[in-house]
């Protein structure tokens, strides 16, 4: 449904995205993860026609997205828009959104406004950070756009509102499926929403796959070093801790039933690496760009 091919983007001398390739299928919820400054927002903004790419292709239903109104009308991006929204009254913003989004659901928007107890008479800049985010979330949900992108939807939201949002999102997704991309830093909290995960690292797509498949490959093995030598040699080791006489290895690789059986019979314990920890191990070597 969405195809990104050989996408490149640099800001001055800073190459942010390097040959990014990505194919997204319809009606799935995708999680986009990556360290600060790796280019998540840049990638999402290019997909949504907000920023111009340097080279490569971005196609929605086989049509170039940039400056193509037929493609753009299927896209909605929700991100920090303080600068543009500031002076506007919330009601007005919803009126404008209603005009622009062809599938806008006014009743659903009213329902969402009451769910969050949003005061729509206020000016956007007078709202708290959390409520500013909520305005964006409501627009994203009520747009019913077939590709809806949420860039850091949890900014400023307390736990209650975050869970409300996840619930509303899942509920609506179940009844009215659409393709959703969520970029977030709160990985463990949201990981169960994602059908597929995309990890952006050092300007490229490092990983893309089904959440549960990735998790299957991510295991801690703890035991005596001599029992783990074979593993160390043949599998991708992403972390290593020494704990008394045992070592705990983080493995990101397939393990066959036989291998599991061997390990267990040698007293090695196997346990799941949670997604957030897996992400940290995989990306901790990324250099975080300071102040873009």
């Amino acid at each position, binding site marked *: 449904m969405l195809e990104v091919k050989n996408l490149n983007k640099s800001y001055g001398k800073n190459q942010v995205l390097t040959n990014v390739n990505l194919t997204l299928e319809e009606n799935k919820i995708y999680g986009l993860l990556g360290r*600060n*400054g790796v280019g*998540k*927002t*840049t990638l999402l*903004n290019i997909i*949504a*026609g*907000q*920023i*111009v790419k340097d080279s490569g292709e971005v196609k929605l239903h086989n049509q170039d997205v940039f*400056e*193509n*109104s*037929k493609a*753009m*009308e299927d*896209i*909605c*991006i929700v*991100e*920090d*828009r303080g*600068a*543009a*929204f500031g*002076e*506007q009254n919330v009601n007005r*913003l919803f*009126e*404008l*959104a209603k*005009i*622009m*989004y*062809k599938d806008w659901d006014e009743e659903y928007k009213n329902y969402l406004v009451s769910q969050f107890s949003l005061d729509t008479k206020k000016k956007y800049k007078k709202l708290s950070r959390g409520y500013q985010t909520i305005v964006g979330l409501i627009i994203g949900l009520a747009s019913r*756009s077939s590709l809806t992108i949420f*860039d*850091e939807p949890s900014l400023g939201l307390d736990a209650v509102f975050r869970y409300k949002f996840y619930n509303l999102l899942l509920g609506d997704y179940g009844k009215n499926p659409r393709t959703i991309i969520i*970029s977030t830093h709160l990985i463990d909290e949201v990981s169960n929403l994602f059908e597929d995960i995309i990890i952006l690292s050092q300007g490229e797509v490092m990983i893309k796959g089904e959440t549960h498949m990735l998790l299957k490959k991510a295991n801690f093995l703890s035991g005596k070093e001599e029992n783990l030598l074979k593993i160390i040699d043949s599998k991708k080791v992403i972390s290593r801790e020494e704990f008394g006489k045992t070592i705990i290895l983080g493995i990101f690789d397939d393990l066959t039933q036989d291998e599991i059986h061997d390990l267990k019979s040698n007293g090695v314990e196997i346990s799941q690496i949670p997604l957030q920890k897996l992400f940290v191990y995989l990306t901790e070597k990324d250099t975080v760009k300071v102040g*873009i």
Partner: protein
Amino acid sequence: MDSSKRMIKFQNQWVKKSLTSIWIIMITLDLLGYAVNYYSSKTSSMGLVNDDLLSVAGANTLVIGIFLVTYGIMVYYENFPIAIGFSATRGDFCKAVIISNIIMCLAIAVVFGLLMYIDRFIVSAIGRQPMVEFGIFNTAEDNILYIIFSMFILFLTLISLVNFVGSLLYKVGWIKFLIGYLAITILVKLYNNSIWVNMWDNLRKTLTTRITPISLIYLLITIFTSYILGYLVIKRTNIKCIKN
């Protein structure tokens, strides 16, 4: 409703809001002006004054000018990022700006024309000598349609230029814009000062003499070119976002 129409409807929301304000301002200031002039002496007049001649509605041009400049620039600081943020294309946006600019200039010109037309009667009625000769038009002699049309064209020319400036300001920012402007000014003056002098001359003439077919063509070319330039600036401009 297809995307162009949606974009035009979006843009007209802003126009509706702005038109209401400018109309109210114009009429209020005029009423105030008439009242002030009625109760005060000739030495403290409010409005356009030339010797003994007075026009209250004439001062509206200043107000309208400021309004158009402010509006034209705000289009890029508010409308543009919101429109693109709501998935409009820059092409559709520019088309909608042009259409809404035309509607707005026409609407303002109509009200302004009417106010100018009745101005001389009210000024007389409050006991002052009305100014009727304004260079571009003459309220005593000209058809009201000519007055409206001539002002419409002037307003549209102004706003098309502001549109181009606004697009540049959004794309490069104030500082770079000023530097660029100064650089070009200096270069033109050094290289061929007469172009510069001619330009200002032409501008003065346009604002102070009646519209002829020739001057109309120049104005239309200016309008057309300004909008094209505005589009060229904006068509590959990034929306400012907070990078993460």
